[in-house]
C-alpha cells in the first residue's frame, strides 16, 4: 500500500467550511451574481462598469462567495444573492432527468460544494436545491464507484474529466484501493517502495536542467 505522510486538511462536510482547507478556500472564491440593497460609499472602483465613487444601491455585480457570505444578513438587507444558472429551475430539471449525462466539471467544478453553500442564503428554492444536489449525487455515484473500482491499468482521464471535485476525490480513493488490492494479490504488498514524493522531486530536477 502506498502510504502518504502528507495529508492535506480535509474540506468541510455539507454546509460547513473548514477554515484551513485549501479546497474550501478555492471553493469560496467562486463568484456569485448579487444585487446590492444599500450603497457602498468609496468602493466604486470594485465595479468596473461604472466610474462613480460609490457602489449605488441596486447595482448588479459578481462577488466571491466568501464576501457575499460575510456581508449577507438576514435582518438587514445589505445584498441579495441570485442563484447561479446551474442551480435554477431550468437546470434542475435537467439534473433530475438524467444526472449521468451532465459535465459537472464544466458546471462547477465545485457543483456540490457551491450548491451546499448556497443554502446559507435564504431563498425560497432552498429545499429543491438541496433535493436536486442529493439526487444528482446518488444518481451518479453508482456509475462513479463502479468505474473507479474496475478501471485497472487504464487511462482514466476520460472517466475523470466530467466529474466534480468531490467525485474526483472519491474516484481517486477508489483507485488507490483497487491498486493496493491488486498489489496484495500479486504478493507485492510487502515490497518496500520509494516514496512518491521523492520520485516526484527527481522528476522536477530534470525539468530544472532542461527548461
Amino acid at each position, binding site marked *: 500500500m502506498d502510504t502518504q505522510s502528507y495529508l492535506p*486538511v480535509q474540506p468541510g462536510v455539507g454546509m460547513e467550511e473548514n*477554515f484551513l482547507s*485549501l479546497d474550501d478556500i*478555492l471553493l469560496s472564491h467562486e463568484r456569485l451574481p448579487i444585487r446590492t440593497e444599500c450603497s457602498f460609499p468609496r*468602493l466604486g472602483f470594485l465595479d468596473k462598469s461604472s466610474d462613480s465613487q460609490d457602489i449605488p444601491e441596486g447595482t448588479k455585480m459578481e462577488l466571491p462567495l466568501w*464576501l457575499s457570505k460575510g456581508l449577507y444578513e438576514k435582518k438587514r438587507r445589505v445584498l441579495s444573492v441570485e442563484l447561479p444558472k446551474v442551480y435554477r429551475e431550468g437546470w434542475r430539471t435537467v439534473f433530475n432527468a438524467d444526472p449521468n449525462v451532465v459535465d459537472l466539471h464544466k458546471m462547477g467544478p465545485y457543483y456540490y460544494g457551491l450548491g451546499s453553500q448556497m443554502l446559507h442564503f435564504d431563498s425560497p428554492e432552498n429545499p429543491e436545491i438541496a433535493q436536486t444536489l442529493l439526487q444528482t449525487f446518488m444518481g451518479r455515484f453508482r456509475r462513479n464507484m463502479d468505474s473507479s473500482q474496475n478501471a485497472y491499468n487504464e487511462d482514466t482521464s476520460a472517466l475523470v474529466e466530467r466529474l466534480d471535485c468531490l467525485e474526483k476525490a472519491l474516484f481517486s480513493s477508489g483507485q488507490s484501493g483497487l491498486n493496493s488490492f491488486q498489489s496484495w494479490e500479486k504478493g507485492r504488498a510487502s515490497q*518496500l*517502495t520509494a516514496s512518491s514524493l*521523492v520520485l*516526484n522531486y527527481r522528476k522536477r530536477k530534470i525539468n530544472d536542467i532542461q527548461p
Partner: protein
Amino acid sequence: MFCEKAMELIRELQRSSEGQLPAFNEDGLRQVLQEMEALYEQNQTDVNEAKADGRADLIPSIKLRHCCLLRNQRCLTAYLYDRLLRIRALRWEYGSVLPANVRFHMCAEEVQWFSHYKKSLASFMRSLGGAEGLDITQDMKPPKSLYIQVRCLKDHGELEIDDGTVILLKKNSQHFLPRWKCEQLIRQGVLEHVMS
C-alpha cells in the same frame, strides 16, 4: 478586487500536488500584508468619520473591507499551515537530513520549525522502548524477514552495517542486507527492493 494576491498563494500550493513543497513566496506574502495594511488604514479613517459625523451609510463599506481583512488572514494562515504539513511529511519521507534542493525552498522560520520538529520527534522516540529507544519511522510495512535483497539504483558510496562490514553501494550491484538498514535508502530511491 481585493484578496487576489492571497488566492495566488493558495493556487500555487494547490498546483504542486502530492505534497511537494514549492518555493516560499515571500514576495507574495509581503504584498498580501501590504494590502491588509492599506485596508486597515482605510477602515480606520472611515470608522473615525462614521463615529464623529454619525455617518451610518459608511458601515457597509467598513464591513466589506473587514471581510477582506479576515479573508486575507484566512488565506495566509492556510498557506503557512499547509506548508508546515508538507514539511512535516518530508521528515518521514527523507529522514532527518533534507537534500539541498528541498531545503532551498524553505524560509528561515520553516527551517527552524523543521529542526524543532526533528528534535521533539527524536526525544519522543528515545523515550520509547527501554534504554535503546525505538525508531518509529522504521517498518512502515510489517516486515516478513530481517534481511532483504536489494539492488542499487545509483552510486551511493560505502555503507557500514552493524557487524562492522563495509559494503560498497555501486550502481546495479545486488546485496543481501538487514532490512532496517535499507528501509530509509529504499524510500529515498537509492536502493530497490527485489522480490523473488
